[in-house]
């Protein structure tokens, strides 16, 4: 909150917050995948992929996104640095 908002002159714009939070929560609602389930999915995915290639577990990211008319699970799976792989 800036000075103007504190003295009641500016816009507090909580509606903007509401909109952003709604957009995020609806992405999960519509896919039927809660953030917790995505974490579980991520752990499973890491286990499966690790059987084949060494990956950097801490940097794996799974995100639900939406483009025009389709929702997507996007996985970003960085491999372990080359020297550790050998």
């Amino acid at each position, binding site marked *: 909150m800036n000075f103007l908002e504190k003295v009641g002159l500016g*816009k*507090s*714009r*909580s*509606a*903007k917050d*509401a*909109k952003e*939070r*709604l*957009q995020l*929560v*609806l992405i999960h*609602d*519509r896919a039927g995948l809660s953030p917790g389930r995505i974490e579980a999915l991520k752990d499973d995915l890491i286990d499966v992929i690790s059987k084949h290639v060494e990956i950097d577990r801490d940097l794996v990211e799974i995100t639900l996104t939406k483009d025009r008319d389709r929702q997507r699970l996007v996985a970003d799976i960085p491999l372990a640095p080359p020297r550790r792989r050998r």
Partner: protein
Amino acid sequence: MSAKIVTITSGKGGVGKTTATANLGVALASTGASVVCIDADIGLRNLDVVMGLENRIVYDFVDVVEGRCKLRQAMIRDKRLEQLYLIPAAQTRDKTAVSPQDMIRLTDELRSEYDWILIDSPAGIERGFRNAIAPADIVLIITNPEVSAVRDADRIIGLIEAEEKGPGKLILNRVKPEMVRRGDMLGTEDILEILAIDLIGIVPEDEAVLVATNHGVPVASDTGSRAGRAFQNIARRLNGEEVPFESLDGRDGFFGRITRMMKAGGEG
């Protein structure tokens, strides 16, 4: 004559389904159409008090379903509008007393004799909701400009599409223009963008609604209030009339933008 069956539903409770059903019933009947309002909220009967007909109830919808009376016997005629009727919900039973097939069978009996059948859905996504949408030709989803109500509306829109009753049309109720203007309430455009659905009406927060409910005379009975006029406009839009969306906040740009958004989204 073949009635159009309109179900008013929301997911979240208390957003204005019963108020909207009573007012759309009054507004449609005021134009000379014949209208039957069915209270599908079994166990939590309320449409009767909002319409001011609670003292005239003899039979209810479950009595009809279970064959204790004829459909016509359960229909209560409005005090002012000759062509407006209510079929009350049972108060001492629950939603399982009625099935979606019962709803379809009984509304089919009415179709040939009336212009509109309005169904007031219970809150929730269970049996009562499924009963209410089973016979619908048009589903109106009502919501408030508030995070949880919009979220539930999104869920309902998904379920309605899954039941092939979509796409449905949105009534945004209890809008406070002053809060929208200062950025503290979700605006119509935000909500339409989030829900990706056609709009059929915007109803302002209006004390006249409560006053009218106290008397048992829906606000749409006269044009004296903003909420009453908003419901009358929704009735006209249901009738296929092109009625501009009222600019609640007195800004000129607002109505133009909403109209453009509607066009871009395509009329359903």
